[in-house]
């Protein structure tokens, strides 16, 4: 399947929800009831066609090497989806996809995808439930079908206008603007339903605003700046600030189950891979904000201090070397320092011309990880004569 086709199948992407504003959306009443379980539509209608399309996508996803084969994790995530979705649990299938970006989605046939970048970024079960509840909201309201119909009708109109001539850029912009406004209503509705489902499941509803605030802080540090200010369209609509405020208002006093320990027990075994994948994105400004937050939440974890230090070392701005050295030194005095912390500190000393100080750390790395992919290169550094 082509890239563009597969991207078009990313139903209800949370990260892309952008700056949905609740103020413009139709309010969901507190006594809103879950709709009955969705039944498979007839194949000859547009909804049937949509389901057939996502069925094929699910077949591909099931076989994909990006999907984590971890029955315990899958059971845990499915359990969260079931607490939120009630009777719809029977129609929900959760796949964890190895991709280091914040995202989750739920297709109209009940296939839910949770990306590993989201697992790294959620602080606890309640925050993950906030994102999953939002996606279940899209699913319950059948937003992707409405989006398909809207896109189709707009394409048809644009086709007629193009045939008549003179549409060009203005027409394209009108199409985009219409879709943006349309999507924002759905995002707002999904936010409200997600919060309702969280409250009924006993989760701490304040987690919904927090997960959005965390993501925004991270993206703000990146090359694109504040995500709420990147686009003219976002600037002319209710912004991220308003969304955060509305989510906090809807959450009320909060309280309820956060699930810090439960979440950590499931996600910590994945942490070495999650950290590696995050660093490989090479978006170090964002990673520093992320790992700083994670390390502050869990100050005894050496792997998180290593990760923060490595993001500094790889960013290589003038002030980063000292910061990285401090982080690596701290990491090695804490729980679970990964062998890479020794490697990183050794490489940092070497880069600063302190080869004698580098040696014990590089030697320690090779002792801890003798079969590491870069063992031959590190050994060659150790073989260099000291100046």
């Amino acid at each position, binding site marked *: 399947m082509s890239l563009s086709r597969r991207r078009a199948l990313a139903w209800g992407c949370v990260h892309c929800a952008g700056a949905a504003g609740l103020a413009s959306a139709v309010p969901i009443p507190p006594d809103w009831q879950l709709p009955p379980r969705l039944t498979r539509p007839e194949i000859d209608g547009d909804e049937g066609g949509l389901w057939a399309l996502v069925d094929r996508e699910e077949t591909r996803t099931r076989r994909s090497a990006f999907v984590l084969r971890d029955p315990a994790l899958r059971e845990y995530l499915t359990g969260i989806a079931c607490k939120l979705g009630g009777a719809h649990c029977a129609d929900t299938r959760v796949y964890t996809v190895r991709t280091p970006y914040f995202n989750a989605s739920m297709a109209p046939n009940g296939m839910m995808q949770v990306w590993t970048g989201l697992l790294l970024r959620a602080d606890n079960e309640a925050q993950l439930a906030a994102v999953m509840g939002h996606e279940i909201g899209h699913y319950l309201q059948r937003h992707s079908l409405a989006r398909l119909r809207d896109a189709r009708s707009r394409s048809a109109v644009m086709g007629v206008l193009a045939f008549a001539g003179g549409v060009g850029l203005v027409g394209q912009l009108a199409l985009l603007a219409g*879709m943006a406004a349309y999507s924002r209503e759905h995002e707002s509705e999904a936010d409200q339903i997600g919060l309702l489902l969280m409250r009924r499941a006993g989760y701490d509803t304040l987690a919904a605003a927090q997960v959005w605030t965390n993501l925004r802080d991270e993206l703000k540090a990146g090359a694109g700046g504040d995500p709420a200010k990147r686009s003219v369209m976002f600037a002319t609509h209710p912004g991220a600030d308003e969304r955060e405020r509305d989510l906090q208002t809807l959450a009320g006093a909060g309280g309820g189950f956060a699930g810090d320990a439960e979440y950590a027990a499931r996600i910590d075994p994945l942490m070495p891979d999650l950290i590696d994948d995050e660093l490989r994105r090479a978006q170090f400004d964002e990673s520093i904000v992320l790992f700083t937050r994670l390390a502050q939440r869990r100050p005894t974890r050496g792997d998180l201090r290593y990760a923060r230090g490595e993001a500094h070392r790889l960013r290589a701005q003038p002030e980063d070397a000292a910061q990285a050295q401090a982080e690596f030194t701290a990491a090695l005095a804490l729980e679970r320092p990964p062998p890479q912390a020794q490697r990183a500190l050794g490489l940092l000393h070497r880069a600063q011309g302190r080869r004698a100080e580098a040696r014990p750390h590089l030697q320690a790395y090779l002792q801890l990880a003798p079969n590491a992919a870069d063992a031959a290169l590190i050994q060659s550094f150790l073989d260099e004569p000291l100046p």
Partner: protein
Amino acid sequence: MTATLRHLLAATLATAVLTLAGCANVAKISTGEVVVDNRLSFTLDAAWNQVNIPGRNKPVLWTQDGITVDALELWFGIKDGQALVDTPKDKRPLVFKATMAPHELVGLFEGIYGLDGSTFTLDKLAPATFLGGPGVRFDYSVLRKTDDVRITGVGWAAVKDGELVAMTFVAPRLGFFPRHVAKAERAAATARLR
């Protein structure tokens, strides 16, 4: 607008531009002495096909069976402070620095694959002779996000006179990589800067 829609429209636009531009053209690279852009020379014992994509100058792209199957990329002329590839505005550019150590050079290529969510695994990184002097060889695997295909790669890199020179060869793990990697290795062994 969702990022999904933006990507879709961008891909459609890119396809349309390529179509209007007459798409890529292919030139045969024969065996023997070959000089690329008056800068990088090879003594080839196997012929390659050079694919020229309108609007894209770097890296120089060679292939045996077509760029959707295998690709030998030649990176050179990249000076201190220059980015290897164009990145979206919301992504940090992958900038080469002349002071980079070998493992940091490899990190640049990791970053390229990471741009679309593909997973990069470094299988081996070792000192190697490249351009007739000290360099590194890196062997790696990529799980490509666009089509779920596992590809295998090998690369060579060195910094010479403050300039990054690198070669990478990638192809699907099954069949194509084992079939062509020796040709890429022999080409790399003869690479010299002029």
